[in-house]
């Protein structure tokens, strides 16, 4: 149990650090400059934020403003907790792990909105409302592909979904599922083409008024959330800890790292659409694709 808790903390801290390093590498690669200092920059940046004063605005909703980053981290942590590291080694082996993950997605929308709303500042408020518009349909399509993955397992438990992939990984059985689920990763941590909450056109959006430790916590939770999504995606679609020769947790680590590389690359390589066009794309193209995935999975599972 101690080992499980230790590895849970390690996933959050080490995962967030990995994402930050990958971000630096991706930026350097695209900008065509040297990537010197990419490994240490996240740590120094965190120290700098710790030394910075925490801001307040005029008449903010202070309780929610301080609570939002902590809750966001709590959601990322709960998401990681349902991921099995090895057969039987799972921090929270819920009968309905998939339902819990759905709750994490839904509450993330609430928390991000709260973060932007509580500052009582227009740019942050626009980011908050915009995020809800995009966050809701993305949540729908991710739940459809998760349910599709639950069909062959005949269970909503994440451990059962892993075991159902002993013969064949879900990424082969339901090829549409993984790419659609990765979109959720970009949306839950609002990165790149899905950055509607903390975007540059809003001078940082929901985080525009936030400084110091609160901002450190918020940015850390964003990175940890991406790591959580990658861990969940590798569990549900890439067979999690399953794999020959190497021990289970190492397989999970490798698969998660591979997905993180894909996610980080996608978050720096694509332009962001205007919110209305993204909304149309999600409902009219991507959601029907999620239906196709469900149908596909259903036919294969019979």
């Amino acid at each position, binding site marked *: 149990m101690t080992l499980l808790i230790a590895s849970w903390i390690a996933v959050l801290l080490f995962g967030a650090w990995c994402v930050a390093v990958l971000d630096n590498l991706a930026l350097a690669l695209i900008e065509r400059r040297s990537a010197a200092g990419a490994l240490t920059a996240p740590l120094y940046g965190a120290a700098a934020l710790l030394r910075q004063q925490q801001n307040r605005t005029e008449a903010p909703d202070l309780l929610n403003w301080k609570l939002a980053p902590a809750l966001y981290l709590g959601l990322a942590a709960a998401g990681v907790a349902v991921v099995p590291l090895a057969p039987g080694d799972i921090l929270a082996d819920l009968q309905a792990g998939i339902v819990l993950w759905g709750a994490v997605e839904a509450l993330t929308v609430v928390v991000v909105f709260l973060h932007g709303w509580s500052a009582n500042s227009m740019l942050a408020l626009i980011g908050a409302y915009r995020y809800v518009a995009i966050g809701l349909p993305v949540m729908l399509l991710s739940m459809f592909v998760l349910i599709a993955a639950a069909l062959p397992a005949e269970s909503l438990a994440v451990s059962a979904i892993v075991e159902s992939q002993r013969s064949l990984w879900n990424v082969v059985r339901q090829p549409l599922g993984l790419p659609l689920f990765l979109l959720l990763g970009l949306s839950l941590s609002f990165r790149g083409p899905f*950055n509607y909450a903390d975007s540059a056109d809003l001078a*940082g959006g929901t985080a525009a008024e936030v400084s110091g430790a609160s901002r450190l916590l918020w940015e850390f939770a964003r990175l940890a959330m991406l790591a959580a999504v990658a861990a969940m995606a590798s569990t549900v679609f890439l067979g999690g800890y399953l794999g020959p020769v190497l021990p289970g947790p190492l397989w999970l680590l490798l698969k998660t790292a591979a997905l993180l590389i894909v996610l980080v690359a996608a978050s720096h390589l694509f332009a962001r659409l205007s919110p209305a066009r993204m909304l149309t794309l999600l409902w009219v193209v991507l959601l029907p694709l999620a239906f196709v995935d469900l149908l596909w999975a259903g036919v294969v599972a019979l």
Partner: protein
Amino acid sequence: MAMSLLGRFAARAPVPVFPAVGRDGEVRLDVLSLAPALRVVDSPRHASILLVSGDIRTADRDSLARVHDQLAHPRATLWWGTQPRADTGAALTVAAAESPETALRDLYRRLLTGGHTSETHWLADEPPNPWRGRGDHGQGGEGMMGGVPYGRMMPMPPTPDLRDGLALDVYTAQFGPFLPQLPPGLVLEITLQGDVIQSAAVVRPPFLPGRDASAPFDRVLHEATPVAAIERARAAHHLRCVARLLGILQLAPQAARCRRTALKIERGGSIDLAPLRKTLRRAGAFAAIPAGLGPIDAAWAAELGGPAARAADQARDRRETAPAYRNLDFRTLCQSGGDVRARFTQWLDEAEQALALARAAGDAAIEKGAPVETPWGHRAPPSVYRLTDMLPGLEWGEALLTIASFDAAAVCRMAPLGIENP
């Protein structure tokens, strides 16, 4: 002990800088932003150092003070190529011709390790609007909103929305002159309903193209100038405009690459723009700009001149008849759309063409005093067409894209002072 260790650690982070760009301060900031030891941020809350780059207008001094006071402690100000405020005792200054990179690094280190005291506020330490509520949370007021929780007014009386006629609250505020995604110097009074612009009025116009950008073109007035130098300056200018637009499309690293390429071109490097263009196309930069956004018609285009006009199919370019270009097989490039996407494409096309011309020109020169095609449109007089007429009905991001799709001279002419403001 722990604090000083943390401070020393923090001092090794990239210096978070919020730029307040004044007159002639934009191009050098673009160059400085490429330094790996710095991070130019979008909000003063994320910065420790306020970098004042270029001369600040008298009218902008209050805004500068406001932005300065919005930085979180520990904070400091560095004045780059401008006179510091009179009341800031020992202000740190760097000459315009020097790079402030080392000064910024050093200042940041001293700020975090206690060698430099954090600056106090410049504005009076009192609420800009005094508390007017009743009760602990100001809940004791009257009306359906239940009082005035803080000194600011409650929303304006509802007005029907432009798009669907729903009567909801409007939010009116002055944006700029230091909002990073607006052209430097531009102050707009914008009325928003949700995230859609209901109306906009110019409070202060942006700056004309700065000295750094226009120097190669002004040089022709005094001496014969190589065609290659002119064309390189044009390509660099266009790439910096492209970079500004990419920032709004959430493509920061690609924007930085454009700025880096612009700098290399100015320094005489031989660059092929095709890979950059391919990267932008694969990133969906063209597709992400909504079709038909920010259109201008033929008369409007003719009045603006420059690349904005050529993007609206007005094939006018002084280089067509210029003797220096006679042997260079110059052909005026045009787009047909006249919208944001067309102007974006036009900048890239013209940058590519300019580099090809620079390569082919050899030592051909434009003689002293000959008319030269600048990378922007006509600089005067104020246009009858208004930027503020384009914005109503646009979503916030689309409005910023529209503004960023015009060069500084065009924005300046479409946003003259004091005409919308009675």
